[in-house]
């Protein structure tokens, strides 16, 4: 809501304060002033002057005039590039030394071979309009030499106030004026305090069929409308400053009254109406061509104003084209009604027709206003000599009384944490228009008609606290009950994330939106749960309507983006939920303000998709950089598999690696990852077709695991190691096996064979050359043996080694390398 200070001062006896001060007080009271426009500021030395002579200078590429002016004192000559004026016109003359908004100073200067003694100003140069097509031509009767700021009333400050949805009353000079008067304790004159003239009998037959959608409808007539009379400058200017466009006198007057008191008005051409006005819901299939000339199919929920011909207006939203005021209109029917907020909100949104009227009805309009607003409009029309009132007032009134609120007078102080005296509570509520009566139960508070938002005691509490001032609230800390700290899951999530960062992975947060084809590009089977299955009805981008069911596509995109930006060695990770449909279904319709039963809550949760948390990494480029020490090492499947070990190790669990074929991985370079027999995910090099589909570098590697399973697998309390003080025996063993045998299997056999004395086992060499034999490989391990209670003898060490080798031989036909 834009409001000029001059309009505000019409109704509030404000002390000598500037607009910024008013803005600060309003903001502190909850009406946030977003900006203050200072109009006419910075204009000095601009006076009214008359054009006495124009010489066209033709030697230039564009038309240039050498203009002689009479400023009431002297003759002055200036250069001017505009041509929209003639001899005799009055113009705004910047007479040196003059200044214009934006800090421009105007001096005499050389231009086009003449000394231009100042300049003639455009509307934009004066900051009063956007018009820069020509200079501003003033009305003829202004005295020469007068300061244009004074002559045109240019100096004003306009407050731009953001109005919250619960404060419909503040969408008016009246509502804001009341707040300003409270803020300064300044007297307020309510513009709506006019006795409505009742006249004799009704004005027009009106019937309200839907009293829920409309509980009041006032209709009044104006005759003898003179379409030739335009709105006066002062009215037009106020509309413009308030952000509305002047249209015609009648429309301007209805808008002016709406801005002043907050009641939207609508004017029908009375001669186009047939039969009584009926307020009802639209019938199925009914249509209406609205003022914006759009033919609309109406919804049965739309509230309409209808006559015998059918709907003539969308109630509270927009009028119809057929009954519109035109240049030919002489008889007017003025509507001032009270429509229900939700009905108007839905209709405005259904037809995408937000209007000044709907904005107000949605936020709640004073239901006592219709007769007053109609009278204000008619009085103004008469005052402007544009028409005359028709006797009679139709006022169909189905309003229900506003319930009073019982308020414990100590409640505001108790909630604020401040001791407000009861008198302050009473005063504040009275200031906003409530009637307060003390009773045995506390205060019986009757909110004013313009505050339909006040329904509960806490609503009144807010009024008291905001007017007493939030600045006066103390800063105290509640004594929270003792908490348990982070949950195990929360702690372990941090552990996992830190482990990856420590291992050289950079965390990214990727877009969770994916396209339908991302599953195909990952080569996933039809039934794979990682195919996108949760679709957004109104996606941000139509090309990505699904929620991710795997973290990989987002990471791939992030990797590709980084590489495109010249960052080639990439190791990224992301953790977070993925979304997998469980069939969905309709959520049960539950009420607000009532705790649902446990069954109902279970039903609610059942319609939600599965949202498991996952961890994924992607690697490309070098894992170790090249440098003066030698060549780099490209990232590969090994690093992706190692990431699984990094994660498992950080939680103190062992991950079992085994070969697998699993999209989107290279079928020969893919590891299944198990912890205690449970599959946690896969790692490896990506399938070349996946690499291509996501425009990744060749041999890009990745891993994706279930964060939930990983965390669940972590021991609650890890077992302490037995630290033996006896010396260790370290022996190596090299075994020759089939080339296809996974080293992990050979290692498992050695472990099993070695038994409890084996403290550590580590593979350290792999040989696949000729000496190993055709189709064979040699794998070397080092074993560290130690007993908890004694120093091992050479015989014991040899026995363990032999047992380990024997088990490897039994399981895998391994032979000792000679």
């Amino acid at each position, binding site marked *: 809501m834009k409001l000029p200070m001059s309009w505000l001062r019409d109704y509030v006896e404000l002390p000598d304060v500037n607009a910024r001060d008013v803005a600060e007080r309003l903001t502190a009271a909850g009406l946030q002033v977003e900006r203050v426009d200072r109009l006419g500021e910075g204009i000095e030395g601009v006076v009214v002057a008359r054009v006495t002579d124009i010489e066209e200078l033709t030697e230039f590429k564009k038309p240039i005039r050498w203009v002689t002016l009479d400023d009431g004192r002297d003759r002055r000559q200036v250069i001017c590039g505009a041509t929209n004026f003639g001899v005799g016109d009055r113009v705004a003359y910047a007479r040196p030394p003059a200044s214009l908004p934006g800090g421009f100073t105007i001096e005499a200067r050389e231009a086009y071979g003449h000394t231009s003694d100042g300049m003639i100003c455009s509307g934009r140069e004066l900051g009063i309009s956007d018009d820069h097509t020509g200079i501003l031509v003033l009305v003829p009767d202004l005295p020469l030499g007068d300061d244009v700021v004074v002559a045109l009333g240019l100096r004003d400050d306009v407050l731009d106030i953001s109005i919250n949805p619960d404060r419909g009353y503040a969408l008016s000079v009246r509502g804001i004026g009341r707040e300003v008067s409270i803020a300064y304790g300044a007297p307020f004159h309510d513009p709506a305090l006019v006795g409505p003239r009742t006249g004799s009998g009704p004005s027009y037959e009106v019937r309200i069929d839907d009293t829920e959608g409309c509980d009041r409808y006032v209709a009044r007539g104006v005759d003898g409308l003179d379409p030739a009379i335009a709105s006066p400058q002062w009215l037009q200017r106020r509309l413009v400053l308030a952000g509305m466009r002047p249209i015609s006198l009648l429309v301007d007057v209805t808008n002016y009254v709406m801005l002043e008191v907050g009641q939207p008005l609508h004017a029908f051409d009375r001669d186009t109406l047939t039969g009584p006005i009926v307020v009802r819901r639209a019938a199925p299939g009914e249509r209406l061509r609205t003022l914006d000339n759009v033919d609309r199919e109406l919804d049965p929920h739309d509230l309409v104003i209808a006559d015998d011909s059918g709907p003539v207006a969308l109630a509270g939203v927009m009028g119809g084209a057929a009954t519109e005021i035109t240049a030919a209109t002489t008889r007017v029917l003025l509507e001032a009604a009270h429509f229900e907020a939700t009905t108007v909100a839905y209709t405005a949104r259904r037809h995408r027709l937000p209007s000044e009227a709907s904005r107000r009805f949605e936020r709640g309009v004073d239901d006592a206003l219709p007769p007053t607003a109609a009278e204000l409009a008619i009085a103004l029309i008469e005052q402007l000599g544009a028409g005359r009132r028709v006797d009679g007032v139709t006022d169909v009134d189905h309003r229900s009384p506003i319930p009073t609120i019982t308020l414990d007078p100590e409640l505001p102080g108790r909630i604020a944490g401040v001791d407000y005296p009861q008198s302050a509570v009473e005063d504040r509520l009275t200031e906003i228009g409530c009637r307060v009566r003390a009773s045995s139960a506390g205060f019986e508070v009757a909110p004013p008609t313009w505050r339909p938002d006040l329904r509960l005691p806490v609503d009144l509490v807010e009024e008291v606290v905001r007017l007493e001032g939030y600045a006066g609230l103390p*800063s105290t800390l509640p004594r929270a*009950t003792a908490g348990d700290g*982070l949950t195990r899951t929360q702690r372990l999530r941090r552990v996992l994330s830190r482990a990856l960062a420590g291992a050289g992975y950079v965390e990214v947060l990727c877009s969770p939106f994916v396209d339908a084809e991302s599953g195909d590009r990952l080569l996933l089977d039809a039934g794979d749960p990682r195919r996108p299955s949760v679709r957004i009805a*109104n996606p941000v981008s139509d090309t990505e309507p699904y929620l991710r069911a795997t973290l990989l596509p987002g990471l791939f995109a992030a990797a590709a983006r980084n590489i495109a930006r010249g960052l080639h060695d990439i190791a990224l990770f992301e953790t977070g939920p993925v979304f997998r449909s469980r069939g969905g279904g309709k959520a049960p319709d539950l009420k607000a303000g009532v705790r649902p039963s446990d069954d109902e809550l279970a039903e609610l949760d059942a319609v939600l998709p599965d949202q498991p948390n996952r961890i994924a990494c992607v690697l490309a480029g070098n894992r170790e950089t090249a440098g003066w020490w030698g060549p780099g090492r490209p990232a590969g499947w090994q690093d992706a598999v190692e990431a699984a070990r990094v994660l498992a190790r950080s939680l103190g669990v062992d991950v079992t690696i085994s070969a697998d074929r699993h999209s989107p991985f290279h079928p020969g370079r893919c590891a299944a990852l198990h912890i205690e027999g449970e599959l946690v995910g896969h790692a490896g090099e990506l399938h070349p077709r996946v690499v291509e589909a996501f425009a990744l570098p060749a041999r890009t590697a990745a891993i994706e695991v279930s964060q939930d399973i990983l965390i669940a697998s972590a021991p609650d309390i890890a077992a302490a190691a037995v630290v033996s003080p006896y010396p260790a025996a370290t022996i190596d063993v090299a075994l020759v096996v089939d080339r296809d045998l996974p080293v992990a299997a050979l290692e498992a056999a050695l472990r099993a064979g070695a038994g409890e004395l084996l403290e550590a086992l580590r593979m350290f060499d792999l040989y696949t050359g000729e000496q190993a034999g055709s189709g064979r490989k040699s794998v070397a391990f080092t074993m560290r043996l130690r007993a908890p209670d004694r120093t091992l003898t050479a015989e014991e060490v040899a026995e363990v080694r032999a047992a380990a080798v024997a088990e490897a031989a039994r399981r895998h036909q391994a032979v000792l390398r000679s």
Partner: protein
Amino acid sequence: MSGPNDPYDPKEVSALSDDELAAAVTQGEAAFAAATDLDTLAEAHTTHLGPRSSVALARRELGALPPQARADAGRRVNAALAALTASYDARRSALEIERDERVLVEEAVDVTLPWDRAPVGGRHPLTLIQERVADVFVGMGWEIAEGPEVEASWFNFDALNIPPAHPARETQDTLWIEPADNGVLLRTQTSPVQIRALLARGAPCYVAVPGRVYRQEALDATHSAVFHQLEGLAVDEGLTMGDLRGTLDTLARAMFGPQVRTRLRPDHYPFTEPSADVDLLCWVCQGTSTEPGAEFCRTCRSEGWIEWGGSGMVHPVVLASAGIDPERYTGFAFGMGLERTLMSRHDMSDIRDLVEGDVRVTAALGREG
């Protein structure tokens, strides 16, 4: 130790003569002094202090002397031995120092050479700030609550006193899961977790909820469809707006430092009554850019205050939706955007830097604890 000489096979004992001993010492000292490196010194040691050296021989002869002569001879031999040993030790340590100095100089390297072989990881600044705020609240005894990102509209709207006609429910704000009339959506705020936390814990309840939320927004410098919020909820007997303010002040200091100044300003939220916005005094211009004629402040756009988040006293309908008696308990709640908090902290101007996954962003901010 017994010497090789036995009384039955006496040998020449001239080695024990004063002259011989003095000569051995003189020659040994000279040889040690003449040694220019440790190898030569070792050779000299063998010659003059080794098992075949004169003093060693002299020492062996002692056993052959009659007991009355042995004590005197022993003293003289020991003195000679001590003198030689001292001379040797002094020379050896001098030579060692010399060698060490030389060798260590020869082995010197250019320690400014890079060694960035291993990749450097980092965590996303938004993850870190979520952990940081979690730690602030855990420190106050609060707990960290969580909820699903795809949420039932009852939790996201109805239970929070946002009626069906409320504009926030419209498709221009909310991303709905298909089919759109199923009442399932991407949560538009972390507030639904208020309800879940209250349902799960009852009162009293002190929880903070950092998390990801979604809105129907196109990506630009200041908007992202996916962003993060921090929600706080305290429900207990006798909680006040003063407690809300104190909690927000604590959080603001933790996020922006001890000098930060906050302001509460009345605003409207359906799920709180009274409601308040939390503003921070612009830390660049300290609010001075609002004065007429002052230079424009890029940080607060010359508004003096920077809007940080929304807050208020939990609306009775919200408490009742979660089965909490609004007559007995009061509560406060607040929520703020973590991207905005982060961008304010680090004076960043483009939210896209946080969502595009450029590793340079994490490199710069991802190691701040």
